[in-house]
Every structure is written in C-alpha cells, then in structure tokens.
C-alpha cells in the first residue's frame, strides 16, 4: 500500500486522518456535551432536563443544531460585515487548531511538536481575536465593552495559567506533550500530586479562560452590559458556542496531560500480571468499568416509563457492553494497540471528569463581579503561581543537588506555598472592610 502513496505524502496520511476525525467528531461531541451539561444541571436542580426531543432528550443537540442553521442570519445595520463574518470563524479555527498538538492516548496525535504545550497555549491566546473582533464588529457600545472585559479576563488568567504550567515544565523537563506524560510515568506519580497548587491554579485559570461560571459575568443574562455574542444569532452564534466547548475540552486535555497523567492508568507502574498471562491486573479495570455501566443501564431499562425509553436505555447498555468487549479484546492485542485503546479510554475518562467538575462548579457557585474577578486573578492567582514556580524550582534543586527524596523535597515548598496562599486570600479582608466602612459613612452623611 505504501508504494502507492508518494513518499513525501506518506508521513502526512495519519495526521490528516486524525485531523479529519477531530473536525468531524468535535461539533457532534460539543453538542452532546451540551446535552450532558443540561442533564447534569437538571439533576443538580432536582428536575429532569430535556426529555422530549428523542428518548431522554438524546436528539436535542440535533434539533438545536438544525434550528440554529435554519435561523435567519441577522447582521446589525452598520456593522463591519467582513469582521462580523470573520470573528466567529477565528474563534472556531483557533479552538480546533489547538487539537493538533493534543495527544488523545499515545496513538492519536496529529503532531507531536517538541514545543507542543507552548503551541496550544499560543493558539488559545489567538482565540481572543475572535472575541475582540466580534464585539467591535457588532457596532454596539455595550458589545464592545463586554468584549473588552472578556478579553481582559482571558489575558489575565492566561498569565496565571501559564505560570502554573511552567511549574509542571520544571518537573517534566520538556515542552512536548508526549514527553510530559512519559515523565509522569518515569517519576511514578501524576504531577497533580506533586504540585497540587499548580493544579489548583490551573483549574481556576482554566475556568476563567473558558468564560465559565463563576467567571462568566461578560456573558451572563441578568447583567446590564451585554456580552460580545449579543448581536450574533443562528449559525454564527453556534460557531462561538462550538468554540467555547472546544476550548473547554482543550483545557481539560491540557490539565489531564500535564497534571493527571494523560493516558496513564492510575498506578501505572504497578505491573502485577494475571497468573499465566501477560495481562496486567489493573488493565482489567477499563473493561470492568464499562461492563458495570452496561449492567447499570440494563438494570434501569425495565424501569423506564415509556417503551422507546426502555429500548434506548437497553441500547445504551448494549453499546457500553460492546465498548467493554473492545477494551477486553484490546488486552490480548499487540502492545501498541492495547496502549492506544486503553490510553484513549483513560484520557477521555479524565477529560470528562474534569469537564464534569466544570459543570459542577457552574451550578454551585454564584458569579464573581468583574472587578472581584480581576482582583482574584492579579492579586491572588498570579502571586501564588509565581511563588509556586519558585517553590518547585527550589524543590528540584534540593532533589538534584542535595539528593533529597523527591516527595520530601516538595513538602516544605508546598507548605510554604500554602502559607502564602492563606495570607493572600485573607489579604482581601482589609480592603473589603475598608470598602464597607466607606459605603456606610457615605450613606450616613448623604442626607
């Protein structure tokens, strides 16, 4: 087969195929993540969520996509047409472009750049143009202000997130995503446990990066200043929406790769085998998990009120059983296939857990006011991230120059960072109290 393809094109075939898969799958995936979010939101709010469009609302994303595509395309009267058209395009392109360096399992990566991490961060920072141009092109004072605020928020939290990533880079020693996961395998521990503050800072920064609650003031509906998306409707709006959810998956992917071990199984170095086979004990977990989910679906199926819901639930159970079989089958396949399949499974599991945490935060916390948001970014996260980087640097020096145990070297620096964090967090208190005094005084003598 390979002699049919010219040798200059051959190395490009697999990456292009991966890229095609991502571009085709991602919009569908983003749509279904929206459905999952609505169902999770409903579950947390003691209600059911979408139930009508398809059994259990499973066709809801299709219906929404159809509606958005068929909607009238409204462009504000004096808007800059070229920019209006370009802005959502930039957002989506940058969001999708970032996937080119993201490894989904050891076998699926479009390009293993040796500056992969920096590339993803750089491309995410280009996504700001989509927001800024969108707000400006709408020819509305409030859209522009909302866009500026959004962009300022993104820039501030990018700094904090980047510093958190830098602390992991010190431990991993390389910018290539594959090497970072390999470093976690070599050092035997996920970096989230090594640098918990780095993980925490990146978690908060990534929520702000994707404009999710509690940092979603620029796009909230009960606020007065409208967001940059106000004048966009129909398909253009759905592009922005797709960009937002694609961004969410990207930051989850980065966090998983850097902090949660990427495609590594938990306890990746534990290599006990099943007696007589070369199958490792813990590698049986994925098929068992999938089987457990399948059994749960089968258990729920008879309890559904409507026949079609019963069928769909049973079908979901069947699909999970097929996944379980595939995972189990992969155990006996050649090592690269096994690694690829199981690696992808663990990666996707961790990414979805991270995204579930995002959803959980959205429905639990109220929204930050914009100045509080900026204060949090600049006066808490960035100093904390700086201290964290310095701490990790000191820990590495202790480990390499003075031969301390790796865990032991991180304990004092983590404690120091914790101390700084507690101090920074309470540093707001005097400012807030002063604010309170001022407003009381002001209202008192404003007779």
């Amino acid at each position, binding site marked *: 087969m390979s002699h049919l393809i010219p040798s200059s094109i051959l190395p490009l075939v697999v990456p292009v195929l991966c890229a095609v898969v991502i571009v085709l799958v991602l919009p569908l995936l983003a749509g279904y993540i929206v459905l999952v979010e609505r169902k999770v939101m409903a579950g947390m709010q003691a209600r059911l969520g979408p139930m009508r469009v398809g059994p259990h609302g499973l066709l809801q994303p299709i219906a929404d996509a159809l509606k958005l595509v068929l909607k009238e395309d409204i462009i504000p009267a004096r808007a*800059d047409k070229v920019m209006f058209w*370009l802005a959502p395009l930039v957002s989506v392109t940058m969001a999708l472009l970032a996937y080119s360096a993201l490894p989904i399992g050891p076998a699926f990566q479009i390009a293993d750049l040796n500056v992969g991490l920096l*590339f993803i961060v750089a491309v995410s920072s*280009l996504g700001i143009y989509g927001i800024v141009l969108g707000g400006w092109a709408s020819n509305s004072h409030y859209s522009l202000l909302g866009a500026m605020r959004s*962009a300022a928020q993104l*820039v501030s939290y990018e700094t904090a997130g980047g510093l958190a990533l830098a602390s992991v880079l010190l431990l991993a020693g390389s910018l290539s995503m594959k090497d970072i996961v390999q470093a976690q395998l070599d050092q035997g521990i996920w970096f989230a446990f090594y640098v918990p503050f780095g993980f925490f800072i990146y978690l908060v920064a990534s929520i702000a990066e994707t404009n999710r609650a509690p940092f979603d003031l620029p796009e909230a509906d009960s606020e007065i200043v409208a967001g940059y998306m106000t004048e966009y409707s129909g398909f253009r709006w759905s592009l922005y929406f797709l960009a937002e959810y694609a961004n969410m998956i990207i930051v989850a992917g980065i966090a998983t790769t850097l902090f949660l071990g990427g495609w590594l199984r938990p306890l990746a170095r534990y290599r006990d085998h099943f007696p007589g086979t070369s199958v490792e004990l813990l590698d049986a977990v994925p098929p068992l998990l999938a089987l457990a989910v399948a059994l749960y679906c089968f258990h729920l199926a008879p309890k559904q009120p409507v026949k079609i819901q019963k069928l769909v639930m049973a079908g979901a159970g069947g699909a999970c059983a097929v996944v379980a079989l595939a995972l189990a089958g992969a155990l006996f396949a050649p090592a690269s296939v096994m690694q690829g399949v199981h690696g992808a499974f663990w990666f996707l599991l961790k990414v979805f857990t991270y995204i579930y945490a995002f959803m959980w935060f959205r429905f639990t916390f109220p929204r930050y006011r914009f100045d509080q948001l900026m204060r949090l970014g600049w006066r808490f996260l960035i100093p904390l991230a700086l201290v964290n980087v310095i701490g990790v640097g000191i820990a590495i020096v202790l480990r390499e120059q003075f031969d301390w145990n790796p865990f032991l070297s991180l304990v004092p620096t983590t404690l120091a960072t914790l101390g700084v964090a507690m101090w920074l967090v309470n540093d707001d208190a005097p400012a807030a109290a002063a604010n309170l005094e001022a407003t009381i005084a002001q209202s008192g003598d404003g007779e």
Partner: protein
Amino acid sequence: MVLANMLFYFFALLAVGSALLMVTRRNIVHAAVFLVTTLLATAGVFLQLQAEFLFVTQILLYAGGIMVLFIFVIMLVNLDVEMLLVQFNRQWSVAGALAFALAVQVFFALWAGRDTLHLPAPPSQLALKNTETVADALFSHFLMAFEIASILLLVAMIGAVVMGKRRVE
C-alpha cells in the same frame, strides 16, 4: 522537498500580500488584522527553518499579546473621523520618486549578489532542541542583556500603571 517549497511560497506570499494589504487599507482595524496575518505567516517561515521556539513565541507574544493590545487601543479610540480624512495627497510625487529610487537600489543589490543568496540548508537533526538552545544562550552568554531587558520591561509596566491611575482630586 516539493511540499516544503510549496509551504514556503505560501507563507511568503501570505506575508507579503498581508503586508501590502495592511498599508493600503482605510479601515484601521482591517489593517491591524492584516498585520496579525503577516506575523502569523512569518511565524510559519520560522517553523520551516526549524526554529520552533521562535515560531511559538512569535504567535504567543507578538500576535497573541502585542497585537491584541494594539487592537484594544484602536477600538477604544474613536477613529471614524480620521478614516474619512483625505490622506496626504500633496507629497505623492516626492514619495513616489524616493520609493522608485529605493526600489532600483534594492533590485540592483539583489541582482549583483544573486550568487551568494543560497543559505546553507539547516541540519536535519539539531543536536539540542531549539528551546533548550535558546534558553542556554539567553541564560549564559546573554544573561546581562536579558536582565537589562527585564528591568526595562518592569520599569515600563510600573510607569504605565502609575500613569494610568486615576488622579483622585
């Protein structure tokens, strides 16, 4: 090789074309966006020269940081009036003559040195990755310049904050 050449010509054309478009646009935001495209195309050329750290830094800092600030300023300053003004018409002839003289000189220089324009091909496998090499150089040979640049940036930041504070009167 063919693919590499095609890519190079693509990036080069994009860069030159965007630069030309940038200087001829009336709408200043369009011009800024074309500048961003020029920078991105240049970054592509860097990548082809196997300078991947420069490629990423160009995107991250130049296109993703500096140009964003440019665009902020452009959008917050109301430039509608300026856009409608007629540009400097009277100096067209002088400008044209000077540009022609410069173009003649550049073409002559290129034609005279056309034999020396072949750059050595970059080694196919660099000993150290680009990032490490840059970092190594910055922190050993060029440490002084690096520190001075950092202090300069710090001074600029503090100056900006001080000047931007609202005067409480």
